[in-house]
């Protein structure tokens, strides 16, 4: 069953809004405005009633699936439950209905919350100073790398390269390019970790930084981290921590203690702010003291009991957002940290790791486990065994949808063929984990017994398998 486009509900003259009558004299705008600037014809927006809009978007929501619908085991995305109280907090009128150009004295309550959030983020990561401005993880990476760029510029050093392991998120190399660096990719070793020899070979005077996710995208903790940081720092480079996987280490290890110089968080992953079907997120950046001068301006500061934005940052890397970033997301993350407390964050990590290990243990005989090293909050299987029977990982993912469960991240990391990357998160209970495990086993049996069932999946979704090649060859991007 498909839902018509909103404009198809339309009828000329139908309205879905009401405004007060205009109570000032009306003039013809064309009389005064520069020639040609007044629109001749109205934009062709829908002409629909409020009920039409409500029915339409309710239908669309029924064609969607969120973490409230069930398990969402996307690896490296940390799709945990989004507490409802956090939504309420972000909607408290005196917190939400403030304007970014209001003077600081009128928004002290909000600034206090943001300042405390900064302190929490510094403590959790073992870093010194924080900027909340980046609006997403990739935005945070970009800011972090620009800080590094600025740092070397101020040192009078020209360093042009950023090293990225082949298991890294695609945003890492893309952010490095955005920040004007050349990317050097290094291979992982047979344990799924950074290969120290390749790293040594890649390091020279031109290297500005190594970007690392720890645990990496296989869920494996880079246990050579001390050697790695030594190699980079000895060569005069800096160490960048991609915080996508912070849910694996809270209370057990801190990037700052691992000698990372810059990190970004994903508040929409670790701290449970809802992802909204693709955003908004928030990607705060935390740095060690020596990099603090280069943070985006302004920086939130406190003097006495007053909070203020410090614009006097002569060495700043610049600005990446018109205002102060995704404030509403920060309020939710603040609420989350306060309800969890320090000890709670540690338990969250423990349960995330427990859930992932339980699943891995239960699935590793059915699906190939390409890297046997200990993993933390996520793990990567391979569908290569099933591929031999002609069924791809994409087929398996689509079949999961028939069982009303979301599919894991697939075909990533790139170093695993037919990768299936699973991150259950701590908020799934045993019953939900068992159901997913059981479904994966059923699918494996189906591949042996009725492969076409899996090959042609999904069968039970609102639409069946969609033709992506057609969409890309002849893009139809608007009505």
């Amino acid at each position: 069953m498909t839902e018509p486009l909103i404009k198809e509900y339309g009828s000329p003259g139908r309205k879905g809004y009401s405004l007060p009558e205009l109570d000032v004299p009306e003039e013809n705008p064309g009389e005064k405005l520069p020639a040609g600037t007044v629109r001749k014809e109205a934009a062709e927006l829908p002409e629909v009633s409020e009920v039409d809009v409500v029915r339409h978007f309710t239908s669309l929501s029924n064609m969607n699936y969120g973490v409230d619908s069930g398990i969402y085991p996307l690896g490296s995305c940390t799709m945990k439950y989004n507490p409802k109280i956090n939504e309420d907090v972000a909607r408290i009128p005196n917190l939400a209905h403030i304007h970014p150009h209001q003077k600081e004295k009128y928004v002290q309550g909000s600034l206090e919350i943001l300042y405390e959030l900064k302190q929490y983020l510094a403590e959790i990561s073992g870093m010194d100073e924080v900027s909340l401005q980046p609006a997403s993880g990739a935005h945070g990476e970009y800011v972090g790398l620009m800080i590094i760029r600025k740092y070397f510029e101020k040192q009078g050093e020209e360093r042009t390269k950023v090293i990225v392991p082949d298991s890294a998120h695609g945003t890492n190399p893309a952010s490095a390019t955005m920040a004007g660096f050349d990317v050097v990719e290094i291979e992982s070793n047979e344990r799924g970790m950074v290969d120290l020899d390749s790293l040594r070979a890649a390091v020279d005077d031109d290297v500005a930084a190594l970007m690392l996710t720890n645990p990496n995208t296989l869920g494996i903790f880079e246990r050579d981290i001390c050697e790695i940081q030594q190699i980079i720092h000895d060569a005069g480079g800096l160490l960048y921590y991609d915080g996508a996987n912070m849910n694996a280490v809270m209370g057990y290890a801190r990037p700052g203690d691992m000698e990372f110089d810059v990190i970004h968080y994903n508040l929409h992953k670790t701290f449970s702010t809802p992802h909204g079907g693709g955003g908004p997120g928030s990607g705060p950046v935390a740095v060690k003291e020596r990099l603090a001068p280069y943070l985006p301006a302004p920086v939130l500061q406190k003097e006495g009991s007053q909070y203020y934005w410090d614009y006097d940052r002569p060495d700043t890397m610049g600005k990446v957002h018109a205002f102060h970033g995704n404030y509403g997301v920060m309020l939710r993350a603040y609420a989350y940290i306060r309800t969890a407390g320090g000890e709670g964050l540690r338990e969250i990590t423990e349960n995330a790791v427990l859930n992932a290990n339980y699943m891995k243990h239960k699935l590793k005989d059915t699906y190939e486990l390409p890297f046997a090293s200990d993993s933390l909050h996520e793990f990567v299987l391979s569908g290569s065994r099933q591929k031999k029977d002609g069924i791809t990982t994409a087929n398996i993912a689509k079949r999961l949808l028939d069982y009303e469960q979301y599919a894991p991240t697939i075909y990533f990391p790139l170093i695993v063929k037919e990768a299936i990357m699973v991150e259950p998160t701590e908020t799934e209970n045993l019953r939900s984990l068992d159901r997913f495990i059981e479904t994966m086993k059923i699918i494996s049996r189906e591949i042996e017994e009725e492969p076409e069932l899996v090959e042609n999946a999904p069968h039970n979704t609102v639409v069946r398998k969609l033709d992506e090649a057609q969409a890309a060859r002849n893009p139809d991007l608007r009505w």
Partner: protein
Amino acid sequence: MKVPEGLYYTEDHEWLKVENGAGTMGITDFAQEELGDIVFVELPEVGDDFQQHDNFGVIESVKAVSDLYIPVSGEITGINEKLLDQPELVNDEPYQEGWIVKIKLSDEGELDELMDAEDYREFLKEEA
């Protein structure tokens, strides 16, 4: 997996047919299969000069991108404009209608570095 006789092959899974110093190249059946549904081919312009192994274009499927490399040095004498509207020809007929560019070879000696059908079949086995 089709590997026709009489063509030259490269380790980048490209084929080259040479007749009287004029070459036609495309990607192999194996390459199109690996890439999946081809959705876009970025072509050079006629008259462009390339050195052997130069990157001269890009071929894209729904979820992968691959650079195209010129198997031998020379000048581009023709491009398969049909691919602009029907990139799927590369999937359907990689060795015929799915050809990508025509090249005027500047050094036929470079052909010695390329594989023949038998070598390429062997190469594919090793890759697997």
